[in-house]
């Protein structure tokens, strides 16, 4: 992937330089170059490792899996970005996903009726539950002045405990050896689309969500108002934007998306709610990183989400075939974000000698409009 930028461009060095001067492009090149070095130092062939990674991510069942895993990643990234864009640091995506996932699972399992009815109902239930869970930290901030950053994080653990308890003591399927609910009946499972060997319909759903977000941010009053609140709360208040209500609002939206994604993970992927499964996957955190890389831009989230999903699925292939641990993909993801956040660019290296001049940098934005 890194090479594409530099090698496949048959154009002048200046064009390469221009591409490199884009911070995200540079950060990708930077991360993959460091990754190359790491693999090289461990005595493996980095070129082979990367080509296995690429192959594993985009060929055969790899492509379907990349697209499949992109669904929750993009979804959770969108949920996070909705909050970040309006200045709400919501680290509670995991909890919102878990709570929504259980609610959606229960509805899907216990509601009789045709799939056309049960599936949307489960999604709604998941969304509502996620939203309700997200409102706790939201009100904690607006009413009690407790930072969402910290309460939403702490509530992740609580969400996991509550759902675990409910499954263990109330909805346990004792025919299996896991702490798990019953299976979602065939009829209530998310259908698959006949593309790339069967990709969950949820992919279409997240694409729609992305499009909605894009339109809302670009063309609506609400989109404008949330972004103003995110950029400068005092300014927003002065402009008649009710920042407190906004905070609750975006948390509700974020929680809803989180809950829907949690539900998708059950009715479209695992088919049962297994205690802890949604947490160990780390999807909420991957989503967070994707949102950061995409600077909270919906369309960029789509791209970055596919990239990170491909990195993860390709990382497995790399481990399978090139004997390089999938942990390397984790390192690459982190490196990209570190480089972007540190605003490393090609230009920075060139200007290094003179040093950054005073006032060169505005504080970095969590979400730039």
């Amino acid at each position, binding site marked *: 992937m890194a090479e594409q930028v530099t090698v496949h461009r048959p154009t002048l060095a200046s064009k390469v330089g221009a591409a490199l001067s884009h911070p995200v492009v540079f950060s990708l090149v930077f991360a993959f170059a460091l990754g190359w070095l790491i693999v090289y130092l461990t005595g493996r062939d980095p070129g082979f490792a990367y080509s296995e990674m690429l192959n594993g991510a985009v060929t055969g069942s790899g492509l379907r899996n990349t697209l499949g895993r992109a669904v929750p990643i993009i979804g959770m990234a969108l949920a996070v970005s909705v909050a970040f864009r309006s200045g709400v640091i919501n680290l509670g995506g995991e909890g919102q996903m878990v709570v929504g996932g259980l609610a959606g699972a229960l509805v899907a399992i216990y509601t009789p009726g045709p799939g056309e009815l049960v599936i949307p109902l489960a999604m709604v239930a998941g969304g509502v539950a996620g939203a309700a869970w997200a409102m706790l930290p939201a009100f904690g901030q607006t009413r009690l002045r407790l930072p969402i950053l910290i309460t939403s994080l702490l509530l992740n653990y609580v969400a996991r405990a509550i759902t675990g308890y409910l499954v263990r003591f109330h909805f346990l399927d004792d025919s299996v050896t896991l702490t798990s609910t019953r299976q979602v009946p065939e009829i209530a499972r998310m259908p698959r689309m006949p593309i790339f060997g069967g990709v969950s319909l949820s992919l279409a759903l997240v694409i729609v969500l992305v499009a909605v977000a894009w339109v809302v941010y670009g063309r609506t*009053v609400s989109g404008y108002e949330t972004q103003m609140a995110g950029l*400068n709360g005092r*300014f927003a208040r*002065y402009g*008649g934007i009710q920042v407190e209500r906004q905070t609750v609002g975006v948390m509700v939206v974020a929680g809803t998306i989180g809950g829907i994604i949690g539900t998708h993970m059950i009715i479209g992927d695992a088919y049962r709610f297994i205690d802890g499964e949604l947490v160990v996957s780390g999807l909420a955190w991957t989503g967070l990183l994707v949102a950061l890389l995409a600077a909270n831009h919906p369309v960029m989230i789509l791209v970055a989400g596919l990239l990170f999903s491909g990195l993860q699925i390709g990382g497995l292939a790399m481990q399978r075939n090139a004997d390089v641990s999938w942990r390397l993909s984790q390192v690459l993801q982190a490196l990209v974000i570190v480089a972007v956040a540190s605003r490393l660019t090609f230009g920075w290296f060139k200007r290094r000698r003179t040093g950054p001049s005073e006032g060169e940098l*505005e504080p970095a934005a969590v979400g*730039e409009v």
Partner: protein
Amino acid sequence: MTPALELRGITKRFPGVLANDAIDMTVRTGEIHAVVGENGAGKTTLMSILFGLFPADAGEILVRGEPVRFSSALDAIRAGLGMVHQAFRLFPTLTVADNVVFREEPTSRGLIDRSESIRRVGDVAERYGLAVDPTAVIETLPVGVLQRVEILKALYRDAQILILDEPTAVLTPQERDKLFEVIRRLRDTGRTILFITHKLGEVMSLSDRVTVLRDGRSVADLLTADTDPEEIARHMTGRDVDLDQRAPAHQPGEAVLEVTGLSATGEHGRKAFREASFEVRSGEIVGIAGIAGNGQNELIETVAGLRPPDEGSISLNGADITDAEVLTRRSAGMAYVPEDRHGVGTSHRASVWANLLVGHQRDPAFQRKGWFDLRAIRDHARSLIKTYGIRSGPIGAPVSTLSGGNLQKVVVAREMSHGAPLLIAEQPTRGLDIAAIEFIHDRLVRFRDGGGAVLMVSAELSEVLALSSRILVMFDGRIVADLDPSKVTEAGIGLYMTGAHEDGPDG
């Protein structure tokens, strides 16, 4: 005799701006040397270089004939320089003593010797007649005292050359006079003072010599005794300037804003202001004068809907808006230019158009059922930029790329463009240069003459006097006077501002 300070060919380039362009300047020992120039002329930049806060791209500095190279403020301090910054540089939660001794702390066995630092600070304060309590915490002190603390900091370090960047911008006339006394006393002890100001009157009354900067260049070096304000202004702007003040027109109409018995609570749970009652009629400018921290800001915030009132009522054009939300107030006809244009009036990282829209994002002209009419919004932004002569790049660029003056124009343009009958303007010209001030004053007057009502808060008494139809003075959270500008002087207002007239308000 070697000059205290010599600058030769100082050049400083910021991305896109040549802030200082080969500036030469000589400051003689024991003189008060004024530095003047429009906004962005490069005064602060020059002083910052002189004080080691950032390096010059070219040029050299000589202190008492010795070439010096400062890589940090510390070097400058060690060379005997002291600087009082335009925006105070104090630690709000620390005591006066801690602020003063910072980095030069007296210690015993590695620990800060508190009683010793209090004693030393008290000593210095006494020696130069700067009345300050060393144990007071900064955030509890009024601005006038803060200024003294800043000067104390320099004197504690035994500064021989003192740089003051716009020290009078926030002072009452009384405080200003006290400051001038201190400055003269310091000169008499052989110290050298560099003094930046926009107020030509101060230049004339205080300085011995004046350097004028324009567009990063030093364009004149004059003996104060040999010049006059018109000449200085001509050097500053490169053209003739009419410094005469405009006489206010006087044909007030209906009451637009009525405030009765209003009180509200401030940051630390204290009453910020009490029982404020006044009205603003169409066709008049009501000026509010007062030392910062006497409740003006909170009063305005309450009227603007950013702070909940404890009691009292506010009505706009006869409609009660006491508890109305900001947008309701705005659509009812209130416009508001806030004091803090960087933190409140604009959003640095948002685009120019987004900044020009705020407060009216829900106006039918710009949206239908929540969907923006982007064309209308852009056209509106472009027309404001044109009408108000805002120098900016594309309207999608972040507003942080604009200069301070243009930023203020963005705020003023936005607030005046919706035909609101009431304009609240807080410190509308603070820190702006003569041309920008002129522009904004002209706008305010035109607005008033068109039947608008203006409520203006300004620390600039000359501005209040020049523009207001009536002047309210606030002291300690109360409106203590309602004055006719044609019958009072700056000094007279100043007395009310310091509470000297506590028992005899005539309003």
